[in-house]
């Protein structure tokens, strides 16, 4: 039996109220699974408010590509241009329509529309910006979701519950950053090397970057950060001594569409 972490926390909360304690709740729901799952890893990385800084001075194209591959590999993100069986070939137009991406590259004028200036900083226009869900502090995707399948954790990570999502795609209309993808068809025939430790998705649900919440819980950095040679940094925005605060203090940073009030938490040093 498996239960969602949230259901567990809720029931555990009630049990604690009644003096039973979390352990009792877990034994009621899933006897025996406790040791494996419950005890929060003492090494878990925690923050009051997670944020990411992308240092474009250090992010060359190969590094960006490596980040994308690491993310998509461990999260079983399908590649419709590269099916497991050759007979599942998808034409380029449909590849484009069905594309699923958590982390991807975009030119300056597409990443920051309306902010390009024709005669300034030619360098900028050559850069490939690495984009992902901004884990907004005031996320419109969370605001519109009718089932709470998209929700924001206390530490600012915006999460997706693929088992609750009804596939209405309201969140996709609401996200001003194009950060969400929908499973227009079964993604599984397009996952070449499945990572058995991370679930694959099924048709009809939305997905996106979750800041590697599953890795943070084990004390690991997000996959992209790990392979970025220091170009990507995550840390606690509320901790004045954290690495991200240090970077924000020392450098000029920009964010995508800050005027919309969603308060994105991915910062770019250009």
């Amino acid at each position, binding site marked *: 039996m498996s239960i969602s972490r949230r259901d567990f926390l809720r029931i555990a909360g009630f049990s604690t109220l009644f003096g039973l304690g979390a352990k009792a709740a877990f034994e009621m729901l899933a006897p025996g699974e406790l040791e494996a799952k419950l005890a929060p890893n003492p090494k878990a990385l925690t923050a009051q408010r997670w944020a990411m800084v992308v240092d474009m001075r250090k992010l060359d194209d190969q590094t960006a590509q490596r980040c994308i591959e690491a993310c998509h590999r461990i999260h079983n993100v399908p590649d419709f241009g590269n099916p497991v069986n050759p007979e599942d070939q998808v034409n380029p137009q449909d590849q484009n329509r069905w594309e699923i991406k958590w982390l991807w590259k975009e030119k300056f004028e597409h990443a920051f529309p*309306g902010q390009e200036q024709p005669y300034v900083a030619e360098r900028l226009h050559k850069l490939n910006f690495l984009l992902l869900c901004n884990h907004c502090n005031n996320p419109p995707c969370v605001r519109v979701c009718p089932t709470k399948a998209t929700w924001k954790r206390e530490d600012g990570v915006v999460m997706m519950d693929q088992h609750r999502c009804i596939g209405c795609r309201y969140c996709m209309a609401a996200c001003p950053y194009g950060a969400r993808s929908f499973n227009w068809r079964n993604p599984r025939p397009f996952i070449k090397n499945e990572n058995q430790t991370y679930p694959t998705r099924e048709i009809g649900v939305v997905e996106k970057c979750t800041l590697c919440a599953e890795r943070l819980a084990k004390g690991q950095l997000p996959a992209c950060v790990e392979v970025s040679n220091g170009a990507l940094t995550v840390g606690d925005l509320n901790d004045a001594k954290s690495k991200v605060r240090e970077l924000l203090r020392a450098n000029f940073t920009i964010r995508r569409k800050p005027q919309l009030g969603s308060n994105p938490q991915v910062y770019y040093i250009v």
Partner: protein
Amino acid sequence: MFEKALVGTKRYYGVLGFLLLLIGIGFFIYLKQLDFGLGITGMSRDVSWGFYIAQFTYLVGVAASAVMVVLPLYLHDYKAFGRIAILGEFLAVAAVTMCILFIVVDLGKPSRLFNVLLHPTPNSVLFWDMIVLNGYLLLNLICGWTVLQAERNEVPPPKWVKPFIYIAIPWAPSIHTVTAFLYAGLPGRGYWLTAIMAPRFLSSAFAAGPALLVLLCLLVRKYTKFDPGREQIQTLGKIVTYAILINVFFFFCEIFTVFYSQIPDHMMHFKYLFAGLEGKGQLVPWMWVSIVGMTLTAIFLVIPSVRKNENTLALACGLVVITTWIDKGLGLITGGFVPNPFDTITEYWPTIPEAFITLGVWAVGFLILTMLYKVAVSVKEEIRA
């Protein structure tokens, strides 16, 4: 009373049979969609809502417009509309049913539909939309059916339905307002981010719905022994005229704000729809037909002789239905998604399976409409016989 829907002429059965055939085809293809996923539609990562949601949006308007018959009747005691109120209410029932079906066929995981009730989320407009739509369906069924039953027994309607009738009056604009709010509150979608969205929705609805009702009244007169009445049709014609004028006015208000301010995020959607961007503009001819047609029809309808002649009135009403449909059923949703958040263009056009599923849902609506109208008309024929 419902048994009246089951007996009829050959032609009646013919219509039902044809609609059932369309429903069957649509359902069969829907099963394919359940199996393969929404990938059989033309929607994409960039245009994540398409034809289904657009039809839903259009039909909410048709449903809401029933109030244009009920309100004069009950608030202004305009007795003439007593004759056709039931036609308006049953049109609303059919339209809301289609709306709900369009939402269901658009879901990626319809089996989890009830998650909306299991995890009620008041901050989501979709949650409220579901409440107002289902409420409206129920209200119209209750009011329509009881009033008709009373009419059949030739007694005044029971007192207890009065409150329902009065609640239904403000409820009608609320369904279309809430539907407009689905779009109007989203950051980063310049085409929808306008406070005039709900007023525009209502004005086009109050034109399109009564226009459809005029056409239906003419059909009822032609094919049954019940005549909805010349005065009734004329009054509906006036409602259509004022509503479509207001709708055209609202459209130009929007154009002024967007193009005088020169804010690119708001202009580019209009540019895509009416001129095309980066060589892409498959909706351009449609949008021009819609706005030019709508404006001309509005002017045309102001002329009394045009309105008084039932043939030209029918033609104008047909144009109102078509031009408002293009505006909402094609342009509104796609125009909001194109260009996408990266200022790039992915176009959208419904696929053949998508079109057949859409047709199937429309057929369900028309089946309900035909059967309900059959009941209503039979009752009216009976008490006049």
